């Protein structure tokens, strides 16, 4: 299943609303990088409000897509990580360092604007 990527000015917005299987996660990674390339977006918000499980594989794909986007010149902020997901990730031993996060989509956009527009 393809995850829709919306363009808003020079930002890309994604809300993940499916239980991500490995294949969908990898496809999303490719789609997002292609979309950054095509649109010239400088900021990306990936909203995870509807995601109720992030296992080690999905965490790795998300962490990688942040680094890959950064290489292309786009800053990524992950938003809306649920309390249960945050607790589970840390207990599992996954520390998503170097990943920008914000409470929700609104805060994520504010964060991006501050960083990119000074």
């Amino acid at each position: 299943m393809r995850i829709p990527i919306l363009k808003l000015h020079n930002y890309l917005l994604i809300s993940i609303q499916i239980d991500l299987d490995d294949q969908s996660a990898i496809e999303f990674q490719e789609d997002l990088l292609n979309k950054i390339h095509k649109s010239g977006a400088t900021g990306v918000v990936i909203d995870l409000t509807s995601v109720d499980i992030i296992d080690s594989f999905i965490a790795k794909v998300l962490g990688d897509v942040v680094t890959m986007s950064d290489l292309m010149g786009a800053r990524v902020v992950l938003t809306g990580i649920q309390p249960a997901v945050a607790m589970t990730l840390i207990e599992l031993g996954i520390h998503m360092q170097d990943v920008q996060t914000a409470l929700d989509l609104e805060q994520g956009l504010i964060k991006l604007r501050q960083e990119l527009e000074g």
Partner: protein
Amino acid sequence: MDFKPCVNINKELDIVGARQLGRTRAKELGFGTVDQARIATAISELARNIYLYAGKGKVCFEVIDQLDKQGLKVVASDEGPGIRDISQVMQDGYSTSGGLGAGLPGVKRLMDHFEIHSEWGKGTEIQAIKWVR
């Protein structure tokens, strides 16, 4: 209660099927949101291990009723290559898959009880229990 006890793991998509069924079972048993996430994540890791290392196997669920408590038992079994050195795979940070899985120590932390039996060349069985609080 209609209780489908096992999910066969043959393809990557079965990992999602296993964790979704596990979450449903956990919810039915009265686990809270955080424990549901813990159980589903643990199942996801165990199912992925089966898929990555053994190719196929199964994840089974069992309700445990004791006098003073109730729990969900997850049994992940395969007839894959087995684990040569269990103490090594139980170390944090150990991986043979290039960091794809957080590994078994993470699963152990997410659950209340964790047991592993493995025979080199014959397969692996992991039992993990979470008690309803």
